[in-house]
């Protein structure tokens, strides 16, 4: 391909044993997009590496770099071109990439956040009922007044198995966006990787703390809003506009890039009480462990016979489930 007027790839880095090919794509006069690989794929190992490199880029404290916005396979760099040139920025990314030559080097700081979860609580049930009454009375994803049975059907498993999968894996935050304070949470264990379609059309209301899943990602709603994820329960606040609780003293957000979320089941009463302790009394203690992800260990575990066997079994059930479950 000759140099055309719509060529947007400013520079590239070749693929190596531990890294996909990198494309630096032009995105206006204040952004570049760093894209990993040419294939549209969503693999956590790509995200681990990108976020570890992102930490190195941020550590350079480049003057004029406003922010970075990692997705699952791209990183958007937002900068002020009057303070930082594109060439200098690309050089800084290249240098950061090259400082991490092998997969052994990919060690990502990652907090583990324990979140209480009440399955099928009355607040999220209200949201489902409102949708059925006002938006789509014949919604096939509502069975017995909720979405859990439809979620199970799509994956060819039981409701009990669905709950066990939600509780049985850690959910990795590949980066936020989309809604204030939100995070896209991906299952780290492929044996728990349930997949569901999104609402069609979307809901007009979802309560704060609602926990839902759309495609492969879990989302915990930060504020009351519309939304399209299938609802399975409610967790505690992960966002606070007023920044009153000590957890939110530096900003309204709980989630950071590379966090892992682990849900544990509690009663609805317990979840509701925690709302009072976060927003009013501001004395709730969030349960957060510091930790890290070693990409090499994860990839070895992921590729192990036991994990791959379990993942294949779930995929087979999902293929059957997809045939049976009505489309939305």
């Amino acid at each position, binding site marked *: *391909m000759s140099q*055309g*007027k*719509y*060529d*947007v790839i400013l520079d590239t880095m070749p693929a190596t044993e531990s890294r996909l090919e990198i494309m630096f*794509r*032009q*995105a*206006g*006069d*204040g*952004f570049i*997009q760093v*894209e990993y690989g*040419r294939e*549209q*794929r*969503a693999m956590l190992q790509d995200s681990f590496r990108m976020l570890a490199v992102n930490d190195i880029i941020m550590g350079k404290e480049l003057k004029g770099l*406003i*922010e*970075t*916005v*990692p*997705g*699952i*396979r*791209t*990183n*958007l760099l*937002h900068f002020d*071109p*009057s303070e930082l040139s*594109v060439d200098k920025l690309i050089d800084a990314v290249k240098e950061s990439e090259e400082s991490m030559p092998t997969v052994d080097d990919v060690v990502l700081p990652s907090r583990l956040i324990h979140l209480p979860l009440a399955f099928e609580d009355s607040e999220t049930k209200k949201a489902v009922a409102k949708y059925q009454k006002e938006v789509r009375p014949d919604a096939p994803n509502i069975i017995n007044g909720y979405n859990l049975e439809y979620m199970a059907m799509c994956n060819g498993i039981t409701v009990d198995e669905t709950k066990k999968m939600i509780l049985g894996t850690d959910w990795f935050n590949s*980066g*936020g*966006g*989309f*809604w*204030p*304070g*939100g995070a*896209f949470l991906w299952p780290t264990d492929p044996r728990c990787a349930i997949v569901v379609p999104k609402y069609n059309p979307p809901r007009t209301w979802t309560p704060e703390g609602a926990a839902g899943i759309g495609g492969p990602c879990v989302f915990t709603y*930060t*504020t009351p809003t519309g939304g399209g994820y299938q609802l399975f329960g409610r967790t505690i606040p992960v966002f606070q*506009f007023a920044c009153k609780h000590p957890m939110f003293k530096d*900003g*309204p*957000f709980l989630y950071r*890039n590379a966090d892992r979320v682990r849900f544990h089941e509690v009663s609805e009463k317990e979840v509701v009480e925690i709302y009072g302790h976060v927003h009013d009394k501001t004395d709730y203690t969030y349960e957060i462990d510091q930790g890290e992800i070693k990409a090499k260990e994860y990839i070895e575990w992921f590729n192990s016979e036991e994990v791959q066997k379990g993942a294949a079994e779930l995929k087979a059930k999902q293929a059957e489930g997809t045939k049976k479950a009505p489309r939305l």
Partner: protein
Amino acid sequence: MLKIINGGIETLVEDWPGRLGYLGKGMSASGSFDCVGLGLANVLVGNPSGQAGMEITGGFFEAEFTDDHVIALTGTDMQPTINGEPVEMWTSLKVSAGDKIKLLHIAPTGFRCYLAVAGGVDVPAYLGSKSTCIFGAYGGFDGRPLTAGDEVKFGAPSADLSDLTGRKLKPEAMPEYTNQWVLRAIPGPNTCPDYATQEGMDLLFSRVSKIQHTSNRSAYRLEELPDSFFARTDGGVGGSHPSNIIDHAYAIRGALNICGNTPILLVADGPTLGGYMCALNVINADLWKVGQGAPGRDFMQFQLATQEEAIQARKEQKQWLSEDSLA
């Protein structure tokens, strides 16, 4: 202070460059939709050009000053009056306690009017900015448009009111309004040959498209593109439509999202991330024009630009929105 009698169609507190640095937290920059209108109004009243002012969209705003102030009105001509008497725009005016300001509807060109007051609007900054994000209901004045009964406070002026009164712009500093806005744009990140066809990109950069009436502070929607725009038949793992890709962050403000066959310019309060390709970015120095484009009336056209031109245009705009523009 300003007591609001009628907030009109939509009046928001906005500053510039807005709330930068929170895209990854799902918060777009918001900010003045036309930073030239706000910037020149601020310069006229002796404020820094990015100081918070009032962005009046559509019109029918009405309010009463409770003290003496110096103000300036810029943007579309909403036939402003004070106590029923017509007043000039694009100049700084002294107002006194008890004066009532009233605006009518938009002029044949332009869509937003800016009201700056010497000292700037005094609301608490939220995450570094006084801008309102109307879509997320935060920032600015309680995260919402101004409404009857609200009392808007102002900071201290930079000089004596008499020294700030009667300032005007050089004729060449007046922005030119039109019904067909030419927006300089840089292609990317998703173009030909991998996402769009050469023919499709040529069409995108040559056609004139009406701004759809469904446009707002998050998104300016344009006319649909033909299927021949796309180089792919589907979006692979990203989805069934060729505009789908695996979610990526949007380079806002100014990214052109291709959502199905509809091109959508993501602006002030737009989404920060999603699963649609982006074919171009309006250059930062031309974003202001989008804010003066009236949905359902005006047209837009993209003109191919380079990064070098865009950076030069940023410098020129910085100069433009300074005291150098005063007569």
